[in-house]
């Protein structure tokens, strides 16, 4: 049985507001986005029989909305969790375990309303092996391999700075993006140094927001009276590695992205030159560089020049992070949901910075510091 195109995203929406939302708890942001996504496909909570979420428990999302679930997925592997939720929902719906799955994200990353304070548990691997050495959270640990990447492949500081520069070009076209003013390489390199070679403008935003998806079988999606065409899940893959950076197989490549991407491409029967649009989780500027290579779009060491030469910019042949990404659009903490939302919008043809003729969008999420990854291949009705 092939699952290619067996399940579709019929509802997709973000929270009503993004950015600074001091009047909503994290759970309310899940719920706000959920209701928006359900309205997007003309459904109500009573139509949902499966709930998946990370951050807040699917138990609480279901109960808050009065949903009586028969399928729960609380997979929480960081920012890529939502890619995994979609993949698991694909299997569950196809196997007949449930019919309509609601996937939700909500995080009060900036205002910290109703959020458990973030700190690694005192006896976690991170607390034992990393915290004693003085990391400053993700900005110190996530990009720790960048120096090695620069030494091995000759990436320049200017090339790394081009990642936020290009994404700001996309953000400029997106009214919901937090940072829309154009920036230059000089702006990036003269922004405060956080963890050299990482400057402030290489780092993602910290915002409040939410997002939700509604999935059902392709068969049911086709029978529904939807205002926008279903977005089919053509392929999906997931994998994980170490939650501490010293445990990663490589500091210049992500095994989890490679495996998750490979599985997604295989399932979709996809060639790289068929991809119209790409989203790669960008908590920090180097992540899309690793992602382009680990997904196989370019060869090892080629991504910095590929981006600097404009291939991923507006008008380029592989539009990447077209909402502005975590660097410029929004980043609540577990950004993956927003990458999926933009992939859905591009396939639907409803994105603020719409790329012409998107039939296939590939969306890759990353969790922790490359500890997990999930990739989705999303397709228009023309692809099934």
């Amino acid at each position, binding site marked *: 049985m092939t699952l290619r195109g067996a399940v579709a995203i019929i509802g997709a929406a973000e929270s009503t507001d993004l950015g600074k939302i001091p009047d909503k708890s994290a759970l309310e942001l899940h719920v706000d986005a959920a209701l928006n996504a359900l309205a997007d496909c003309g459904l109500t909570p009573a139509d949902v029989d499966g709930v998946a979420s990370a951050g807040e428990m699917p138990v609480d999302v279901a109960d808050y909305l009065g949903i009586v679930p028969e399928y729960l997925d609380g997979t929480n592997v960081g920012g890529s969790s939502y890619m995994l939720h979609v993949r698991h929902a694909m299997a569950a719906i196809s196997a007949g375990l449930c019919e309509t799955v609601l996937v939700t994200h909500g995080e009060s990353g900036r205002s910290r309303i109703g959020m458990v304070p973030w700190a690694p548990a*005192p*006896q976690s*691997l991170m*607390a*034992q*092996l*990393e*915290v*004693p*050495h*003085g*990391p*400053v959270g993700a900005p*110190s*640990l996530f*990009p*720790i*391999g*960048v*120096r*090695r*990447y*620069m*030494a091995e492949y000759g990436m320049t500081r200017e090339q790394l700075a081009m990642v936020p520069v290009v994404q700001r070009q996309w953000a400029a076209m997106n009214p919901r993006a937090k940072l829309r003013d154009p920036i230059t390489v000089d702006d990036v390199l003269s922004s*405060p*140094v*956080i*963890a*050299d*070679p*990482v400057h402030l403008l290489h780092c993602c935003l910290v915002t409040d927001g939410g997002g939700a998806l509604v999935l059902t079988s392709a068969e049911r999606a086709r029978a529904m009276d939807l205002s926008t065409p279903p977005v089919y899940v053509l392929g999906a893959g997931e994998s994980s590695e170490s939650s*501490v*950076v*010293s*445990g*990663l197989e490589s*500091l210049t490549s992500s095994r989890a992205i490679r495996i998750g991407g490979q599985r997604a491409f295989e399932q979709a029967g996809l060639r790289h030159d068929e991809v119209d649009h790409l989203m790669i989780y960008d908590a920090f500027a180097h992540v899309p560089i690793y992602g382009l290579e680990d997904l196989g779009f370019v060869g090892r060491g080629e991504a910095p020049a590929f981006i600097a030469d404009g291939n991923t910019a507006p008008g380029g042949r592989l539009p990447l992070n077209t909402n502005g990404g975590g660097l410029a659009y929004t980043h609540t903490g577990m950004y993956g949901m927003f990458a999926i939302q933009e992939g859905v919008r591009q396939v639907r043809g409803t994105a603020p910075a719409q790329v012409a003729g998107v039939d296939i969008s590939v969306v890759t999420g990353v969790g922790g510091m490359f500890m997990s990854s999930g990739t989705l291949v999303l397709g228009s009705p023309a692809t099934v």
Partner: protein
Amino acid sequence: MKPVPSPTPDTQEWFDRIDAGSLTVPRCRACASYFLYPRSVCPRCGARSVELVEAAGTGTLMSFVVNHRGPSGFDPPYVLAVVRLAEGPHLTGTLVTDQPALVEVDAPVRVAFEQRGDRRVVCFELEDERG
């Protein structure tokens, strides 16, 4: 004071040995592979029999950042590094140097220890800065 690790039963002996001034690397008694972080099971073959072997105490700087902000007790700028030990596995630690701007990937390093109260924490020094 800077933080010290709170071991779990499967990491206790490794940290105890560090407190005593000795870095060890776990090795599987069945397949002889070295690994880190310390754990009670070999991640290569699944054997439950693991021994702690005294590390050579040398390694190579795999990569690093120079932190320009630091938690309480740390004095920026300082080098946070991932080192490949001579035995193979990687370990995170600070690289003690007065000249973080001159540090380069692949530099040979040596294991050192920083005293924190009655505990010790592993750190690294550049081979060619050792007097």
